[in-house]
C-alpha cells in the first residue's frame, strides 16, 4: 500500500514494517535536543531522584539560548547548571551561546532525512524541514526519553499542505504560514503530521523550509515535514553532515493523506497577524495602517540569514522612522557572521537597527528585552499571544521580515512591496489563494 513519509518515518522508528494512524507505538529516539530552559535545570534533579543515568549521551544535543545573555543571578545559575551537566554527563554536542536551538541544530549538521527526533521545545518541528520526524516534548517527558531512549506515540494522520505556483516579489515562507494559520486555525493541524509539498515548497531554500516546519507548531500539528531533496543534501554537506540519503525518505506519490489542502502561491499577498493569535492573519492592507513603536526581527522563526537578507532588501539606503525602534537579533552567530561578511548586517545597522545577541531575546519575554505596558510591536517571530513578549497590555503583530522592515521605515503597518524596487501593481489577489481538493478521514 502506498505510504506517506510520516508513516515510513514512524514505522522505522518503532521497528515495524508498516503502521496505521491511531496505532499506539513505542519509538526509539535517534536524537534528543534540549535547551537551557527546559533542559538540565529541570531534568537533572529528576534524574538524581531516580538514580538514573542518560541512555546515550551521544544522542543528546544541548544548546543554550533562552536565558542569554545571563544578565541576572538566576540566569547565570541556569547557565552554569547547564554547562556542568553537559560536562558530567559527557554530552559532546553542547553548543553554548552560539544561537537559537532550532537554527543551531540544523547549521551544525545534526539533522538528516529519516531521523526520529524529539526536542524540549514546542518549535522542535523545525527539524522536519530535513525530512525527519521531530516534535516537541516537555521536561518530564524528556526525562523519560533520557532514561529509556524511547517514547510512546499515537501514529498521527498525515495532512498534505501543498503549494502551487510562484511566490511574488516581497513574499516568503512566513506569508505562506500566516495564510495557512488564518485558513486552518491554530488547531487545524489537530496534533497530526503535516507534510508540506508542491512546487512552491520545493523552490524554497533550507532556511525558508525551516520557517514552514517551525510554525507547524502554530497550526497545532505534532510535526511539519518537508521531503528531502538536492537542496537538503547541499545544505547538509555544507554543514559538515557528510553524505545523506535523500532517495529513501519520500512519500509515495499515490499515498492518500487524511487531508490534502492546496494553496496558490502566485495570488498570495503579504500577510499580517493581529494580536493575540497567528490565526488573526489577513492581507497587509486589511490590517489598517496601525501605528507601531517597535519592529523586531528576531527568533528562530524570523532572524535566520535568509530573513536578515529580506529585511536588508527593504532597509538598504533607508532609515528607521522617527519614534520607531528596530531591533535585530540574528538567530545564530554563524548567520550573523555571514550577514556581516556580505554587507547585509551593515545595511540593517546603517538604517538604524539595534543589534541584539544571538539568542531568544524578547521572543518569549523571559528576560532580556521584555516590552513594557502598551507597547505596539511588529515582529518576525512565530507567536503573538497576550503577554508573550512582556506586559499583558503590550500588543504584537506578526509579519514577514520584509513586512517588519517596511514597518520600521514607515512607523506603521505597510505593504513591503511598496518599498521594493520591482513592485508591479498586479497582485490584486482577486482569486482566493486556497482550494480544498479532497478529504478523507480513514486511511483504508
Amino acid at each position, binding site marked *: 500500500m502506498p505510504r506517506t513519509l510520516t508513516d515510513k518515518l514512524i514505522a522505522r522508528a518503532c521497528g515495524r514494517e508498516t503502521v496505521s494512524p491511531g496505532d499506539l507505538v513505542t519509538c526509539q529516539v535517534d536524537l534528543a535536543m534540549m535547551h537551557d530552559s527546559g533542559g538540565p535545570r529541570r531534568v537533572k534533579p529528576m534524574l538524581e531522584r531516580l538514580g538514573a543515568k542518560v541512555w546515550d549521551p*551521544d544522542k543528546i544535543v544541548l544548546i543554550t539560548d533562552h536565558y542569554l545573555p545571563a544578565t541576572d543571578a538566576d540566569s547565570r545559575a541556569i547557565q552554569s547548571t547547564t554547562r556542568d551537566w553537559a560536562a558530567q554527563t559527557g554530552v559532546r554536542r553542547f553548543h553554548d551561546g552560539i544561537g537559537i536551538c532550532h537554527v543551531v541544530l540544523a547549521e551544525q*549538521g545534526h*539533522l538528516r532525512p529519516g531521523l526520529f527526533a524529539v526536542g524540549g521545545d514546542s518549535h522542535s518541528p523545525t527539524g522536519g524541514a530535513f525530512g525527519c520526524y521531530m516534535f516537541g516534548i*516537555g521536561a518530564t517527558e524528556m526525562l523519560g526519553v533520557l532514561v529509556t531512549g524511547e517514547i510512546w506515540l499515537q501514529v498521527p494522520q498525515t495532512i498534505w499542505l501543498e503549494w502551487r505556483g510562484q511566490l511574488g516579489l516581497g513574499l516568503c515562507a512566513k506569508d505562506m504560514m500566516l495564510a495557512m494559520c488564518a485558513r486552518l486555525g491554530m488547531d487545524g493541524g489537530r496534533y497530526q503530521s503535516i507534510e508540506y509539498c508542491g512546487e512552491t515548497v520545493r523552490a524554497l531554500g533550507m532556511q525558508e523550509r525551516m520557517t514552514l516546519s517551525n510554525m507547524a507548531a502554530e497550526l497545532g500539528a505534532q510535526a511539519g515535514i518537508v521531503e528531502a531533496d538536492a537542496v537538503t543534501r547541499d545544505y547538509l554537506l555544507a554543514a559538515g553532515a557528510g553524505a545523506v540519503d535523500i532517495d529513501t525518505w519520500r512519500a509515495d506519490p499515490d499515498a492518500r493523506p487524511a487531508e490534502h489542502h492546496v494553496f496558490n502561491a502566485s495570488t498570495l499577498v503579504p500577510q499580517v497577524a493581529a494580536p493575540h493569535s497567528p490565526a488573526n492573519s489577513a492581507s497587509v492592507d486589511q490590517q489598517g495602517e496601525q501605528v507601531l513603536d517597535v519592529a523586531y526581527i528576531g527568533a528562530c522563526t524570523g532572524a535566520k540569514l535568509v530573513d536578515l537578507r529580506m529585511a536588508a532588501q527593504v532597509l538598504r539606503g533607508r532609515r528607521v522612522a522617527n519614534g520607531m525602534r528596530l531591533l535585530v537579533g540574528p538567530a545564530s552567530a554563524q548567520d550573523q557572521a555571514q550577514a556581516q561578511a556580505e554587507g547585509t548586517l551593515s545595511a540593517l545597522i546603517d538604517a538604524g537597527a539595534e543589534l541584539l545577541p544571538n539568542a531568544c531575546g524578547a521572543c518569549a519575554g523571559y528576560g532580556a528585552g521584555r516590552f513594557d505596558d502598551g507597547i505596539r510591536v511588529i515582529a518576525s517571530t512565530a507567536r503573538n499571544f497576550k503577554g508573550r513578549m512582556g506586559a499583558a497590555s503590550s500588543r504584537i503583530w506578526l509579519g514577514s521580515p520584509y513586512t517588519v522592515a517596511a514597518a520600521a521605515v514607515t512607523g506603521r503597518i505597510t505593504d513591503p512591496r511598496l518599498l521594493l524596487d520591482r513592485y508591479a501593481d498586479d497582485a490584486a489577489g482577486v482569486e482566493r489563494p486556497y482550494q480544498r481538493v479532497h478529504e478523507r478521514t480513514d486511511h483504508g
Partner: protein
Amino acid sequence: MGKAWVFEGSVDTDVLAPGQYMKFGIEEIARHCMESIEPRFAREVRPGDVVVGPRNFGLGSSREQAPAALRQLGVAAVLAPSFAGLFYRNAVNVGLLLLECADCGSIRPDDQIEVDAAAGLVHNRTQGHQITCRALPAHLRSVIEAGGLLPWLEQRMAKGDIPAQTAPRRSARSPADSTPASPPRSDSGAVPDPMPGSASGSTVDATRG
C-alpha cells in the same frame, strides 16, 4: 467535589505559565497562573476545584509548567472539548487529569462538579445531570494515577522494569562534534538506516554496567 472555574476565549501556555516567571519554581509560577485573564483565579482556587475551558486548551509552548501550575494549585481536573496535543502529553506527565468532553459548555461558573475518571463521567451536582467524556487509554491513566511520569518511572525501576544504569551507554564510535551520533539499531531490518556508514561498531556497548 469542587467548584467549576469556567474560561472562555482562548487559554494558551502564556496565560497558564507566563514567560516572565519561567525562571522561578512552580510555586511562584502557579501564583501567576491565568492572571492575565482572571486575576482572582490563583488566589481563590481551592484543591478539588475543576477548570472548564475552551477547545484547543493549552495551545502554545512546550512548557510543562502550564499543566504543572494547575496541579500545584490543586486543580482536580481540566474539562475541555479538546486539548492542544503537547499540553495533553505534558499534563499526563505531571499527573494532571484532563478529560475531553464535548458537552462541558453546559457547566456554569461555581457549579459543584464531581469527576469519575475511570468511568469517564462528570457529575454536575448543581444542575443535577451528568456528562460523558472520552475515556482515557489505560496506559495514560496509569501514569496520571501514579502522580505523573516521574513517580511512574520510579515505580517501574523499583520493580526492575527499567535497569538503574551505573554508567551511561555510549556508542563506540567517537563522532566529531559536527557528526551526528549513530543510532544503535538492530531491528531496522530491510528499512534503510538514515545514517549510512554509522552501523559499524554502533551497537557495541562496552561500557554498560
